């Protein structure tokens, strides 16, 4: 199912089914105009929940512990880490119902005409939890820390992501000017960074030792206590700057506690037995069980594939057998999605036609990605063997988590039915990251690419990029990526990324499997899961990078 492309230290106990929290290292979710249809169901409406009653506590079951803590510029947060970060910190921008980015902690984020300069106006009257004020200098220091230009902080990933920033300057006490090397239409989405690019207080930024576990932000809850592998507790921020659409003071809850419960079956047990009253999971089999419980009213389930990730089999196009398109197509034809959906998803999965989930720009209902056709697959296998004189055999690399190994065996069977030979290599998490980085794999289970704007995938697919693990060198894709990045016209970008999507379908560099479903299940008396948008009551529908905790409330 998922080959979690992940900052390994952030994942704990990933051997356990469902715990493979893909870090969803989607660096940024970027809006970019409309066009993204609102496909896929966006979970049960919370409308009939009645009048909000502030107070109370939510205990939220996470799928993994964030062992390395929350020193944001250096951290590589998975969804569990992001959920906690969104509790303590605010990001400068935040996606609205259509996946477009509106200012949040910033009162305004304006690009110049050619998108090479972005002016960020800092919201005034906001203080950090330690009482220090939020001003341009702190925002600048944060942005410099993220791009590796701040003494004392050494990010690895964000250097890479924000490498397009030339300079960050304080124009006046409440305004910051960011200059980019190359026009950057999606920069406002990068300021959200899937909820990772929160603003830290100066004290935490400069703390050489406890940056990871001394969390000071501006967010709805104040950090109270973190006992690794046990609980992370945060209490209501009484003078939080934000209010909801009706002007009520946020956050509604008095206290929120996050508990890592790695075994998904136990997370469900904890919810059913009342140990916790909220949890998240992306495991299809568990979600189908939760759906049953939702119908019977024991719990209330919110699920969504919008703006989510895609689960797929990544093929290494730089060496045999998958340097040959016939081999890639043969494997694609051999994969029977309906059987897979019945066995591994109990029928609730949606076939992925490309890397862009519903709601994302570039999403298409139809692409040339081959469907299930066993004869065609067998024919291609014979052709490949005549052409190369070699049997079509490859290795399938996966982690040891029980669910990923089950997928491996499914793929193995599908390939062998078509006449291929498959060796399943199960490795632990670290070895899998090495295999991806070094490219010593032929096929590897993977999950990635959440987020609304395709520009965010630039680094994964650009030729020569160190994180282009599939190592495909496709001039069209490279060209489309560059055009998409700097073309200001929204409609033009939709066409560009739809072409990109079709290109993937034709070349079968990866075999897209299904759009990953994320779900949040809560006790019946817990509401406000999707919360509200930055400027309107309509919530952002995606769950792939957690939920805005400020809007959670419990019937009192």
């Amino acid at each position, binding site marked *: 199912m998922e080959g979690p492309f992940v900052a390994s230290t952030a994942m704990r106990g990933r051997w356990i089914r469902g715990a493979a929290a893909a870090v969803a290292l989607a660096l940024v979710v970027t809006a970019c105009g409309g066009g993204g249809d609102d496909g896929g169901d966006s979970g049960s409406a919370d409308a009939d929940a009645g009048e909000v009653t502030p107070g109370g506590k939510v205990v939220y079951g996470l799928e993994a512990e964030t062992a390395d803590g929350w020193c944001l510029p250096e951290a590589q947060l998975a969804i569990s880490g992001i959920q906690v970060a969104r509790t303590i910190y605010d990001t400068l921008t935040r996606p609205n119902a259509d996946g477009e980015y509106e200012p949040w902690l910033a009162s305004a984020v304006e690009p110049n005409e050619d998108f090479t300069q972005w002016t960020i106006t800092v919201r005034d009257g906001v203080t950090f939890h330690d009482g220090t004020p939020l001003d341009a200098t702190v925002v600048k220091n944060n942005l410099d820390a993220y791009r590796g230009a701040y003494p004392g902080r050494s990010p690895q990933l964000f250097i890479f992501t924000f490498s397009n920033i030339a300079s960050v300057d304080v124009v006046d006490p409440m305004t910051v000017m960011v200059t980019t090397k190359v026009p950057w239409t999606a920069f406002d989405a990068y300021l959200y960074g899937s909820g990772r690019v929160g603003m830290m207080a100066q004290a935490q930024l400069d703390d050489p030792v406890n940056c990871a576990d001394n969390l000071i932000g501006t967010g709805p809850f104040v950090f109270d206590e973190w006992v690794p592998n046990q609980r992370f507790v945060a209490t209501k921020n009484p003078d939080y700057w934000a209010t909801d659409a009706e002007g009520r003071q946020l956050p509604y809850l008095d206290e929120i506690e996050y508990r890592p419960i790695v075994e*998904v079956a136990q997370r469900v047990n904890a919810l059913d037995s009342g140990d916790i009253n909220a949890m998240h999971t992306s495991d299809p089999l568990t979600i189908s*069980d939760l759906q049953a419980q939702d119908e019977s009213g024991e719990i209330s389930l919110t699920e969504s594939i919008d703006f989510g990730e895609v689960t797929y089999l990544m093929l290494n196009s730089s060496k045999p057998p998958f340097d040959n398109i016939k081999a890639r197509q043969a494997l694609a034809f051999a994969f029977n999605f309906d059987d897979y959906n*019945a066995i591994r998803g109990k029928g609730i999965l949606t076939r992925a036609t490309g890397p862009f989930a519903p709601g994302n720009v570039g999403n298409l209902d139809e692409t040339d990605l081959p469907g299930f056709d066993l004869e065609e697959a067998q024919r291609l296998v014979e052709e490949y063997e005549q052409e190369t004189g070699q049997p079509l055999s490859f290795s399938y690399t996966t*982690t040891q988590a029980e669910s990923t190994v089950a997928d491996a065996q499914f793929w193995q069977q599908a390939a062998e039915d078509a006449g291929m030979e498959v060796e*399943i290599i199960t490795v632990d998490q670290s070895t899998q990251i090495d295999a991806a980085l070094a490219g010593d794999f032929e096929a590897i289970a993977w999950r990635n690419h959440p987020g609304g704007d395709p520009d965010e995938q630039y680094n994964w697919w650009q030729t020569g990029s160190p994180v282009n693990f599939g190592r495909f060198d496709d001039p069209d894709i490279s060209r489309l990526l560059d055009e998409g990045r700097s073309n200001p016209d929204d409609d033009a970008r939709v066409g560009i990324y739809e072409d990109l999507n079709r290109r993937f379908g034709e070349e079968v560099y990866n075999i897209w499997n299904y759009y990953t479903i994320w779900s949040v299940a809560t006790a019946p008396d817990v509401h406000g899961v999707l919360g509200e948008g930055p400027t309107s009551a309509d919530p952002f529908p995606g769950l792939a990078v957690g939920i805005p905790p400020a809007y959670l409330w419990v019937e009192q």
Partner: protein
Amino acid sequence: MPERDLDVAEMPSLTPVSTMEPVDLVRADGGVPLTGKKARQGKLGVIGWLSISWLALVTLAAILAPILPIDDPNQVTASIARQPPGTDGHIFGGDGLGRDLFSRIIWGGRSSLLIGTLSVLLGLVLGGLLGLVAGYFRGRADGVLTGGFDVLLSFPQLILALTLVTVFASGEGVTATRRTVVLILALGVVSIPVLGRITRANTLTWTQREFVLAARALGAKQREIMFREVLPNVLPAMFSIALLGVAVVIVAEGGLSLLGVGTQLPRPSWGNIIAEGRSELRDSPHIVIIPTIIIFLTVFALNYLGDVVRARFDVRESAL
């Protein structure tokens, strides 16, 4: 009166040759086995025969698996995924990935029985030997060997096995057979200190008995005493613990499978079937329950026969 050489057998026993009168010997019809009155005489009894037939059935099924008329254990069919036992043609139903549970359990028997018996055998032979030497010679040999046992024992067994398997049998080019061999060695290494220490403890108590001193007084060589005098007395205890060990190892392989370093999938073993099926406990518990019953019957039969065999050798009768 013709000179008759004395036939020792006819000598009246002025001083007791053995403290037991012949009637005791006759009466000493066997220790106190697991079974009822009949087996007390070392006979098998109903349960004894059931155990033998079960073990024969399981072993035969495992050996003949390739030629038995059963499905391919790895054949994935969507229609039988998670089907309960008794669906047409699938006695035990289907597992989480739509494979026939019945054939997976038969094929699983190959790995589980192999791993269970061979690793315990390794532990019994090596561990037993070292334990015997340590308990008999004491002194420096004892110190060194106990130290060696402590080194292995202070390493949590599951983690030691996990590390050994990760180092020697994971990653590129590792075949399922190599993984099983390394598993046998890893679990064998893990059981050496356990059996070693138990044998040592038993040997300690036996070497204090007079008959060992007597044998030494008769000038027997140390090695002879150890193997001919002490070992037969220590063997019953080692034997019953080893049989217990088989049960523990078969189940431990399940734990390893859970950590991803058990029998290499898709090759089945009872342990990894349970590990794979654990998340289906709520709506299709049969995937876990059936292999557990199979393991239970096998280990019960093994230990039961172990008791009956032991009852034959153990000559004394409970005095209480």
